[in-house]
């Protein structure tokens, strides 16, 4: 299955969340791979702590593959090449976890041609044979990468594809997330241009809220009562706004709570971070686990 991670604005935690989902899915025993389609800033290696690819690879990555310079993009096995001990020890029963990074120094493409599209289609089809889940991390906003992905999936109707739109729980992000999907030149418009059926495509798009402050949780114990009451009211208004903008609970796949570890260092959260050093919150891992399951759970995508 192909899963595309996209967001309208930067800083939503799109990459770190989707990386963690992939990691959780691998721990659940599935073979997963992660494609860095954030061409303008190919830094996803840093999240997996693969130092050879922290700013993209030098051995021929996604950029050079799509431009036809190399026959296959470099693959990195995260279980063996990560610098983190906690990640490098592949637990028994876990699936493959492979990273396909961009090129160091590679930049955003201005447009794409038929050849490039063919190469992209071939890449997706090939990976689909080998992996259960292919996470494609697209750059923020309306990008060339998103066009390419929509065009490629339109040619691969047999491969199930799903879209995750990441947004933070703020007024601006809610409006932006809706715009990215339903606005002019949004995902739906572009998708239809490339031959997708609008209704079928909208059924495959779900929203993921990131850096969510859980009002009921202990994080709020230190707030003054007035602040808490203010936040409750804001939250209620945001809900209404989200409902009006089609970003409400019915189209939400899950939410990821605000976690200091994610906030200050974008990284995979291992079980040791929660149970051992306790630097990360168990709720965060729970949220990732839940998302990793729901991504492939058809009933979660059934909708109303």
């Amino acid at each position, binding site marked *: 299955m192909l899963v595309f991670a996209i967001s309208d604005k930067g800083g939503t935690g799109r990459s770190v969340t989707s990386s963690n989902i992939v990691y959780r899915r691998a721990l659940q025993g599935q073979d997963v791979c992660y494609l860095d389609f954030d061409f303008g800033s190919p830094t996803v290696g840093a999240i997996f702590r693969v130092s050879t690819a922290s700013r993209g690879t030098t051995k021929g990555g996604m950029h050079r593959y799509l431009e036809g310079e190399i026959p296959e993009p470099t693959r990195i096995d995260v279980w063996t090449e990560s610098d983190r001990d906690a990640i490098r020890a592949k637990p028994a029963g876990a699936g493959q976890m492979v990273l396909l990074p961009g090129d160091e120094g590679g930049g955003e493409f201005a447009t794409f041609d038929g050849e490039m599209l063919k190469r992209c289609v071939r890449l997706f089809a090939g990976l689909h044979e080998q992996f259960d889940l292919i996470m494609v991390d697209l750059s923020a906003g309306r990008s060339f990468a998103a066009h390419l992905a929509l065009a490629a999936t339109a040619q691969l109707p047999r491969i199930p594809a799903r879209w995750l739109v990441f947004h933070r729980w703020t007024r601006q992000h809610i409006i932006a997330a809706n715009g990215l999907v339903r606005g002019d030149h949004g995902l739906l418009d572009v998708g239809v241009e490339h031959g997708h059926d609008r209704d079928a495509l909208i059924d495959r798009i779900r929203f993921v809220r990131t850096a969510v402050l859980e009002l*009921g949780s202990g994080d709020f114990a230190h707030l003054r009562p007035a602040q808490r009451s203010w936040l409750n009211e804001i939250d209620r208004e945001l809900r209404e706004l989200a409902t009006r903008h089609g970003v409400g609970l019915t189209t939400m796949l899950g939410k990821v709570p605000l976690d200091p570890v994610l906030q200050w260092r974008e990284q995979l959260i291992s079980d040791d971070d929660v149970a051992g050093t306790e630097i990360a919150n168990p709720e965060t891992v729970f949220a990732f686990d839940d998302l990793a399951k729901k991504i492939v759970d058809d009933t979660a995508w059934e909708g*109303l």
Partner: protein
Amino acid sequence: MKLQPRQQLLEIWEAAARASSQGKEWRWGGRQGSNSISDAEQLLCFMYPASELPEFRLDTPDATSDDVLEALAAIGDSVEIPKRLLTLLDAYLTTYSDKDGRPLFGGDSYFLPNEPGEEITSEQRALDVVDSYSMSVTLMLGTLGFLKVFRRSVTRQDIRAKISDLESRANVRLSAAMVGLLRSFTINVFEPGSPQGQALLRTANQAKVHDRRVHDDLQKSLEEVRAGLRDLTIGSGSQVDLDNPNLLFECGWAWGVVKNAPEVVTDLKVGEQPKGVAPEVPYLYFTANALVGVVDLWSERTRVLGLLDDDQQQLANALQRRWDITQNYWRTVATFGKDRWPLEDIPWRTTDGKESDYYSLGVTAMVVQYLVRTRAGDVDLSRVAGVLEELARSARITRRPVENDLSAVALHHPGVKVTLLGSEELGPQLIWQVADFAITLLKRTIWVATITQSNRTRERLHSLADQIWAHIQQRQFTHQQVKGLWDNPAGAFDDVGDEQTQVSWYFTERIVEFLVTLALTSRESPLRSQQLVELAGEMLAEAEHLLNREQVIRPVRARLGASSTITTIATRLNRARKIMGERPASAAALINQSLLELDQLAAARENASEAM
């Protein structure tokens, strides 16, 4: 008040969801098994708060709040919950319809034989009961409103089709329930000299005057009721002869369809209208219940959502007439005379010579409903408050039961026996056992508390409500599976030996209903006293004057701390002015604080000038 309706309701939802779901399966029925009433009560535990309280709504999956989702986690997430409700409502409507789609309102396992051990016949089980009609009215209105709103969030064809199907079936059941209620209304006419007439006159005659005079006065004050009853057209009770001014009468609902009740002519699809066996005798319990149930038919929600079509509206109007007249009748009898009210003469004695605190409570319900509607004066309400307190005492809720106080305890467990006359034609004599005394008392108490204008009466009633609630909480289950639900009377009464293990949806649903009422009234603005508004106004004038003076005297030095004190005071006083009309006490608190700070500044200045 110690009650927290939102918290309590969420706890009940969590408990009810846990008790009802067994994996993906739904567990119907409780203590007395599954039947058309108990299952409706079980569903209403969820549907009623969802349809009455915006914070608890389940029909708009996008807007379901987090604490609600947490409470209902056993059922599913915000999308699954409404889908699950569709399935459950579908199951309910299928179970309680015959193969032609005619709705069934049988009392089934709620019927008990008068002599324990006797076998109830299947014809008896199928007999319609007013309780089932009234629960169905509430449940179907909740269902229709839920479907109407939920439909807006749905785009999938199969779900939309299911919603339309449920809508039409729910409408059939609603119409049939209304027809049933119209056919179980009854007027009982009797001679003043008959035992019934004597009982009624004895009740009315609290001043102990001559029977003849009481009779004449009573007839006179019932004239309006009599005229109203004469004008009834459709349903039972319309063919009774009330022309003889010497005959006494009573009106209300029988326990089921009245024997020989005429069919209600309507274009609505309601199926065959069953023959009844109930004699033309109104029952206090069923009358009070019907009166509470049918109110939803003309509630604001029903009107705003346009839940009734024209034909249904016609039936609802006919019911509303009966509702009006019945309330008026019982109110007139219960508050008759200039001395002590018959209602205050506890326990109430029915015309068939039965006496119980439970009947007093039933009459109180009707009187309260009437008082709510007519915005009664505080003198009347304070008398009703007295009756409620007395009932709580004698039912051993606010007073400890003495040893072997069996009659008071029996009111709660096993409950008051109501003999269902006429049922013996089809088998053994049936009875109906009602054990909702405590919660009904609590409901009435809160009702009266919300309409009284007098703070003293309200305080009194709130403290009574707290005590009754404490009693009810003792009867809550504490063991797993049914934890947090009701009803276990052994928790409150030592004399009740047998511990219950099964949930009573009958009791639990009434608690939910009560908490919803409480939540609805808590959101209204508080009562305000004119005196307090005036006082706050005077105080504000002084504070603002002092503030102005402070601003004139003080040299402007922007970076010093004092000016920010002045700004804070000014902000606070502005706020006080803004809320003074609605919340004078809060305004006064703000003004007080400002006055203190202003005085501190003034005192400091005085001290400085003294030292010169």
